[in-house]
């Protein structure tokens, strides 16, 4: 079975402070990892992805994430948040097995940036 766990449902942080949103996954096969951001009443926007290669990936809006295979984690980080980063963030994994693609999302983390 494949699963994604986002340990924090809500994360309040002051403006210009650093933030880390945690994501752990479980899968019996190799996976590709993604972070999406969702603003109120909108669809999902891709922030960054890990497909292969360097385990540190950089995305849009100053976000980055590090793939840690031994800890099965893909935590999202930003060194200094802005008010505009207030949104919900979803971690997702995609695996391919037997010609089929399986996509699993976490339950999301609401980031609230406090002025």
């Amino acid at each position, binding site marked *: 079975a494949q699963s*994604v766990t986002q340990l924090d449902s809500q994360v309040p942080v002051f403006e210009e402070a650093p933030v880390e949103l945690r994501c752990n996954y479980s899968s019996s096969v190799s996976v*590709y990892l*993604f972070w*999406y951001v969702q603003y109120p*009443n*909108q*669809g*999902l*926007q*891709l922030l960054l*992805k890990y*497909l292969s290669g360097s385990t540190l990936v950089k995305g849009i809006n100053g976000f980055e994430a590090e793939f840690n295979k031994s800890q099965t984690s893909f935590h999202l980080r930003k060194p200094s948040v802005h008010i505009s980063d207030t949104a919900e963030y*979803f971690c997702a994994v*995609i695996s*391919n097995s037997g010609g*089929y*693609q*399986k*996509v*699993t*999302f*976490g*339950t*999301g983390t609401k980031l609230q940036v406090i002025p």
Partner: protein
Amino acid sequence: DAGVTQSPTHLIKTRGQQVTLRCSPKSGHDTVSWYQQALGQGPQFIFQYYEEEERQRGNFPDRFSGHQFPNYSSELNVNALLLGDSALYLCASSWLNEQYFGPGTRLTVT
């Protein structure tokens, strides 16, 4: 490039009715997936279409069906609507292992 588009934006239906949601994929993308996102939850995979066929399906009842057209656009149909079908329905088109999402259709069942 217009990206992934969905219509309508919002929809209100009554229990027992049927609804059709539409999705146009990003240019060059041949695979379309549909997701249901209930309030306060992450997206749940409904099914995926490739080459006009349903390639795989999540844990949703047969009331949920779909179609993909030769131009890769897709429809999601839900029959015999239940109150619990109220959600944001997201369409995603993909190329290889990357998915791009549309803005969603907000369905309210009363």
